[in-house]
């Protein structure tokens, strides 16, 4: 007989005991733990999802803020750039203005100095030329030359225009008929008579003559009738030359001033 009924009964009891044992020690705790763990994990997942959502919202708001800040930064940068550009331009124009002013001043002062120097140079040159000429003529001058000059003077007197002659005549009358004749050297009596004859024949008799000498004439003769003067001397040549030169200098100065003004208002390109 393969079946022992007592053993069967005992095994049924054993099996039921095992069911109870495993239910107590295995299924109950394990199922409870699994359920708890599952619910915990589900709760964790839910929480994680929530936190993720929150984090996403935060991230969105933060990125929005970052974008705004970036925009503001760009705006500020562009404003600052524009201001800096404007400031730079202003500084540039100021600097250019200052440089222009300084250059103008410098140019003007240079011009002035140049003018002054040229002026002085011209004047001293002219003076030196005159001095040298005067000295040369004085050293060359002598009685023979004086005689020659007087001859020429008398010749010119004869060829004087009629209206000139009339004017001199009038002038001589105005001062009571006395004429002053100045020469560089002492005249001989003969020459004095010759001059007096010539003058009287031309401007009328009864004229009184006074003779004088002057080193200033260098060589030559000068006839003074109060307000009028007739001269034929090196000194008078030089005088008229000096007058001409000074007039020329004045004109030159005027034209230079005009040029300087033109230069001052002109602006270089750039």
């Amino acid at each position, binding site marked *: 007989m*393969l*079946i*022992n009924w007592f*053993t069967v009964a*005992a095994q049924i009891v054993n099996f039921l005991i095992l069911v109870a*044992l495993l239910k107590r020690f295995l299924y109950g705790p394990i199922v409870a*733990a699994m359920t708890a763990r599952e619910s915990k994990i589900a709760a964790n997942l839910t929480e994680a999802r929530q936190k993720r959502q929150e984090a996403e919202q935060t991230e969105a708001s933060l990125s929005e803020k970052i974008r705004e800040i970036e925009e503001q930064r760009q705006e500020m940068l562009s404003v600052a750039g524009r201001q800096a550009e404007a400031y730079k331009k202003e500084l540039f124009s100021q600097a250019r203005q200052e440089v222009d002013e300084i250059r103008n001043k410098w140019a003007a002062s240079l011009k002035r100095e140049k003018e002054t120097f040229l002026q002085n140079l011209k004047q001293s040159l002219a003076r030196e030329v005159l001095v040298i000429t005067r000295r040369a003529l004085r050293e060359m001058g002598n009685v023979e030359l004086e005689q020659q000059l007087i001859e020429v003077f008398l010749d010119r007197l004869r060829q004087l225009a009629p209206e000139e002659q009339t004017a001199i005549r009038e002038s001589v009358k105005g001062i009571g008929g006395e004429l002053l004749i100045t020469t560089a050297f002492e005249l001989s009596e003969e020459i004095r008579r010759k001059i007096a004859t010539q003058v009287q024949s031309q401007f009328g008799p009864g004229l009184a003559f006074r003779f004088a000498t002057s080193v200033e004439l260098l060589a030559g003769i000068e006839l003074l009738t109060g307000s009028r003067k007739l001269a034929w001397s090196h000194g008078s040549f030089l005088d008229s030359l000096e007058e001409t030169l000074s007039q020329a200098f004045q004109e030159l100065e005027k034209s230079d001033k005009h040029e300087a003004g033109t230069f001052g208002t002109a602006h270089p390109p750039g």
Partner: protein
Amino acid sequence: MEISLDQWVLFCRGPVLLNATILYTWLVMALLGLVSWLATRRLSTSEKISPWQNLMEVLVGGMREQIRQISQQDPGPFLPFIGTLFIFISFSNLLSVLPGYHPPTCSLSTTSALAICVLVAVPFYGIAQHGLRAYLSHYLAPTVLMLPFHIISELSRTLALAVRLFGNVMSGSLLGTVLLAVVPLFFPLAMQLLELLIGQVQAFIFAVLATVYIVSAAQAHEEKKQTLRPGPAKPETQ
């Protein structure tokens, strides 16, 4: 050579006796109880768990899932009975790798005892779910004439369960012994491995069939009540 462990009697006084079947059953019970207690002594509900707890969770979770798939209902009430059937048979067969050990399931008394438990469990779960009257009316459906067939069906499938498990496990042990005598090297080892596999398969088959019987008894009433609701096909009796 002994065919049944029952005949290996260690102690006898009147009708009460202690044979190897009962002794090995106690050994298996003690080991299972100890392992369960050790594994569930310090359970954790956090994300980090011990390997033992993990193993037990896999085992229990797997069984629950199997029961749920077969029964299409909450595995909670069935788990202690069907789970213990599976674990006991599986563990008994698994321990046969130990020398000197003989699985209690190779005793027809043990398999009969388990089959009788199933025989009792079927009406037990049926009555627990639907009530005594509703369950008993199942035997009279569709006509009273079917009552003997229903009873024969219950008894025959119980017998089939018992003999199938006994035959498979006992043949395994027997085959091992015979082969050891005929081909002493290597081949018995391969057969032993095959036997381990067969032992697990038998545990699975026993548990699945028990589930099917229990659930089909309950399902019949469900179908009568709600003819429209689709349920699992009634399994064939093996």
